[in-house]
């Protein structure tokens, strides 16, 4: 896709692990393609072990892909010059799940937020102080909070500080890895609103990683669903959350329990456990848990087939040849 600010092409990451003295390959991410358009939010949905954190690390250039490439404005990140790499670091900023471990307890809030600014050449102390106050106010804190330490703030306020740090260098992309999972419910909505406001105001692109389809529906324009390191479905947030095509997406949707005691029973409730990524099943990775599996599923890995709402899903049931 042209115009994408951050993309992955055929991205893969294999870890070598030793289990009972035997060397084994763990395919954390395989054949992953994605595009993030400027100002848009791409939701990445999946459960533990699906590879979403590995994907996040590769997109942040904190980990090197085994195969494929990460593209920033169309250029392969493996070939970046040191200067261009610095530019990338300013343009792509992470916000992590736990603001208790992501903020240094011995630094003042102002120092924490100013740290990414120190790499910008020609920025004066005054300009930095001004910017720190600006971003603190943008996330609903006071400019004077810069003098305080992280331990003086609640969990929700700390996550605001982490967001303020992320936007300080005027990035183009925010990488949000479960940013509200550790927050209380009354705080979650506040943080999600701030993120959405900032996105509108600064035209930020966001990668929003989550296991919760409801928050993804609120935040994302497009969604990819991951299972055992592979994308199993992609589509608009609306399509994924209301009329999913892949049986796994349907199971995830059923498991996103609606806050309504009269909600109808799920069409395809989830069953079984996630197989070990060290020993992924042959054929379709989901066939061991799929209530709709048939003889083709454990032999052949399904290709991505178009879905009714303009997305695509890796399921043999969507293969036109299969209708015969």
């Amino acid at each position, binding site marked *: 896709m042209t115009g994408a600010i951050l993309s992955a092409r055929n991205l893969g990451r294999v870890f070598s692990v030793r289990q009972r003295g035997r060397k084994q390959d763990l395919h954390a991410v395989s054949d992953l393609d994605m595009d993030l358009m400027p100002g848009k939010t791409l939701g990445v949905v999946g459960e533990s072990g699906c590879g979403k954190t590995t994907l996040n690390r590769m997109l942040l250039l904190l980990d090197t892909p085994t195969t494929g490439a990460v593209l920033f404005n169309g250029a392969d990140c493996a070939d970046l010059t040191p200067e261009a790499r610095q530019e990338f670091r300013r343009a792509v900023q992470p916000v992590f799940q736990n603001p208790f471990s992501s903020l240094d307890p011995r630094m003042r809030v102002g120092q924490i937020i100013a740290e990414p600014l120190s790499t910008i050449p020609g920025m004066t102390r005054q300009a930095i102080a001004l910017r720190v106050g600006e971003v603190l106010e943008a996330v609903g804190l006071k400019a004077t909070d810069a003098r305080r330490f992280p331990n003086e703030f*609640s969990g929700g306020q700390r996550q605001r500080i982490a967001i303020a740090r992320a936007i300080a260098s005027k990035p183009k992309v925010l990488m949000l890895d479960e940013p509200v999972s550790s927050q209380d*419910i*009354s705080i979650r909505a506040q943080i999600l609103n701030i993120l959405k406001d900032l996105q509108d105001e600064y035209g930020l692109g966001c990668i929003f990683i989550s296991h919760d389809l*409801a928050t993804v529906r609120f935040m994302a324009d497009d969604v990819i669903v991951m299972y055992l390191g592979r994308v199993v479905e992609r589509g608009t947030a609306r399509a994924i959350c209301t009329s999913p095509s892949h049986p796994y997406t349907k*199971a995830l949707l059923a*498991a*996103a329990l609606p*806050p309504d005691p009269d909600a109808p029973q799920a069409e395809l*409730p989830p069953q079984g*456990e996630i197989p070990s990524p060290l020993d992924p099943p042959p054929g379709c990775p989901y066939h061991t848990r799929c209530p709709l599996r048939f003889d083709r599923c454990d032999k052949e890995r399904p290709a991505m087939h178009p879905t009714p709402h303009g997305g695509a899903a890796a399921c043999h049931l969507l293969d036109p040849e299969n209708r015969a």
Partner: protein
Amino acid sequence: MAEHLTPPLLEMRNVGVRLGRDANSPALIENIDLSIWPGETVGLVGESGSGKTTLGMALVRLLPKLLETGLSGEVIYEGRDVLKMGKAELTRIRGGEISMILQDPMASLNPIFTIGNQLREGLRLNATGTGSLEERAIAALESVRIPSPKARLDNHPHQMSGGMRQRVVGAIALTRAPRLLIADEPTTSLDVTIQYQFLDLLKDLQKRAGMAMLFITHDFGVVARMCDRVVVMYAGQIVEQGPVRDIFRRPRHWYTRALLDSVPTVDYAPARLPTIAGSPPTVADRPAGCRFHPRCPNAQAKCRVQMPVLDQGSHAVRCWYPLDRERSAA
């Protein structure tokens, strides 16, 4: 609660937990009046620090020493006050008649013993079972839908997945056919598809055993699926309680209403989520008057000075100016 014909299984009367014996020390929870009837599931919802876990622990007297000395009120179980029981009687009740499942299964299981070993320990205390311990341990694992249970008996906890471990904890909790199960965020550490299956299993086991359940959670989706009645806590007090449909359709407390409104759903994406300003107060600086008034959109002069009481009836609320309108579905 007039509609119940049978007496409650357990009744908490004016229970409070303070930080120590001193009457002026801050209270983690106070004025707790709560009844649980046989066979019903009561959802206890609240944010962190609201006192829901303290309440659950107070029920079975598993509080840390300092809090144990600050425990007051009455917990009537089968005509006897749990707070006045001696050690022997408490031991008989805990794990036998009242059992618990906690959030982290690894905190409940001993990592150096096999799960067969840990299951048999509970089974040995149960005089009612028939068959060998081994057979009963296998049956217990079967009841929580663990595949190839015989082979699993020799596994250590670390050899199982999180969902599997939590099911083992469930099996152990249910070995002595408890009449009340306290489940404190039992699915928070599980993946969503595993959570779904575990909740299904719990519901099924509950129906078969006819036990009551106190389900502590912060997740309204879980409450909607599991509970018959809901108790909402805020800053150490019960602020609302009632039948699950009433709580979701016609919440009377402004906090409950605002909390429900702020939960995103998969069905639609609003431009912004409704929020509650500020954050819950800590134990040390809870405000005077109504605990919620600094964050309440409808706070009036009276709310700032006088603490409201929980009114009577099947749908009770602690508010001077409660809401009285339907909450639209979307």
